[in-house]
């Protein structure tokens, strides 16, 4: 797994009689995107699993020699949505148009995106940030021959959408 792990050993804290929860949460809040946490503890930190899941982390557990545990928390990958006709978006050019549509209520984001696409040359890319998935836009994009990929940001509050202008002009 391609995550970089920060390590936190709570065994000395527990030995000293200190409750390590705050320490752990401070460490978690300091994690960057794509970073995980390697936690060393003398027992399975069961209650922590659901707390971490709500914060967007999954875990792998392994038992160490001597009965201690190593837990590796790593970020959940946000689900990436894509149109069926989409090729590898890593090879798309940089966006030619960027739109922030988070302050528009439906259906305005859909209107703005379709308008912007009309004036763009074939093969160019539009990037838009919306406050939610534009579910009615997706079928229309495909019908017009465009490709798209998109996902929510880590906090789940913004949907990021990349659209590559297709050539079809029905």
């Amino acid at each position, binding site marked *: 797994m391609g995550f970089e792990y920060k390590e936190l050993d709570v065994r000395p804290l527990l030995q000293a009689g200190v409750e390590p929860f705050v320490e752990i949460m401070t460490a978690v809040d300091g994690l960057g995107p794509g970073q995980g946490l390697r936690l060393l503890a003398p027992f399975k930190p069961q209650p922590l699993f659901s707390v971490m899941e709500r914060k967007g982390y999954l875990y792998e557990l392994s038992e160490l020699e001597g009965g201690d545990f190593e837990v590796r928390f790593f970020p959940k990958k946000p689900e990436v949505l894509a149109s069926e006709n989409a090729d590898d978006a890593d090879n798309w050019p940089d966006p030619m148009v960027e739109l922030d549509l988070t302050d528009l*209520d439906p259906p305005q984001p859909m209107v703005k995106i379709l308008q912007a696409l009309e004036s763009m040359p074939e093969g160019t890319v539009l990037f838009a940030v919306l406050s939610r998935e534009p579910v009615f*836009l997706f079928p229309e994009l495909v019908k017009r021959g465009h490709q798209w990929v998109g996902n929510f940001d880590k906090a789940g*509050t913004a949907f990021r959408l990349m659209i590559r202008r297709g050539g079809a002009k029905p």
Partner: protein
Amino acid sequence: MPGAPISRWTMSYFAVSLVCLLSGLAAMGSGFGFPSGDVGAPDTLVVVHLLAIGWLGLLFCGALLQFVPVLAAARPRFASVAAPALVMLVFGLSALLAGFLSLGGRAGFDLAIMPVGAALLVSAFIALAVSYAATILSRPEIDLSGKLVLVGLVSLLVTIALGATFTGVLSGMLSTEWSAELLLRGLPVHAFSGVAGWMSITAVGVSYRLFSMFMLAPESGFSTRRLIAGLVAALAMLWVSPFAALAYPGADVAVEWIAVALFAGALFVYLSDVFRMVRSRRRKTLELNTLAGVGSLVYLLAAVVMVAMHQLFPDTLAFGPAAIYALAMGWLSGLGLAQLYKIVPFVTWLEAYGPVMGRAAVPRVQDLVRESRGRSWFILYHAGVLLGVAGLLCGAELAFHLAAWVEFAAVAGLAVELFHARRLGYAPADIRLPKGAVRPHLLFANQI
């Protein structure tokens, strides 16, 4: 493929449901059934089921056909059940009503028509519920709205199972020594599972998404766990209360109290979430549908207070019937009409102008309605509901009948507005139908 298509039959469901609402209001206004007749009289059953299944049931099912795929951002599963289910619901409801009329001596059908109608209704509702549930469950993660709709669907199943059993008892086909007991104890459970469980919880679920969508409020920070846990516990209490009475006579009252308290707690959680959404919204001026929708929440609060009063003082004023009326006509119908006023123009606009959007000038969604007219109809409607609640509380039958006609006029007015929206009647003439736009049918969406 992610993304939601336009639902083909939603408008058909809406049209039939509006016809049922107008028929039900006309019947109420003419003094058919309660309060002129008894609460459990066959005439009352006709009106109640015309409104509960015909109006609210079809409205909710039609709305979910469109809304569930939006919620799940996925194509609908088993979408082909929509049209046959509508036909079965219409025939099933007609048979059920014919049975009630025969039960009251107003028609001469064999009472076996009731269970036959129930079988049609049960099949249709189960088919639709399976379709909605499969669509929601097709996503790896289910949000609060989706979970609430699933809880609502479970309540729907309990409601229709009880209802179908009652038709067996009432028609005499199911006759055992505990038939009378079953009716007596089961009826409140049937009514509350339907109104509070299936319809209110579903409405709450849908409203979370719609409110945040049209107020531009963040969809996070909701008290999901507490709300779901409270509602599931409340429903469980509601459903075990008749059995509690069998085990310990009198225990059902205590269990009912717990259920009421749990519902009230869930309501508090819901209202505080809505309040937070209203406060943190980024869209400052609210549209008519959101205002009318948030306004209908007041009835929900009033109804819970009246249910509690009914438990405390069962013999003072008609709190029970007034609470049911406030829930059905104020909260559920008020929210339903408010959302119809948004969904119909929105979906019509999408269908008509989706193909040419960005390529030609098109009207805005709000150009398909005249909000000033809509506002007058909503004010009139709620004046009618308030009059109806007051009439029931004070036992003033004339006021109750008058209230029904006031509501009738308002609903008819709104129906005309929706007709204009479907016909693109208010759209500016020069951009009404640019080349490539699709003229929508009145009663269903074009196959895309």
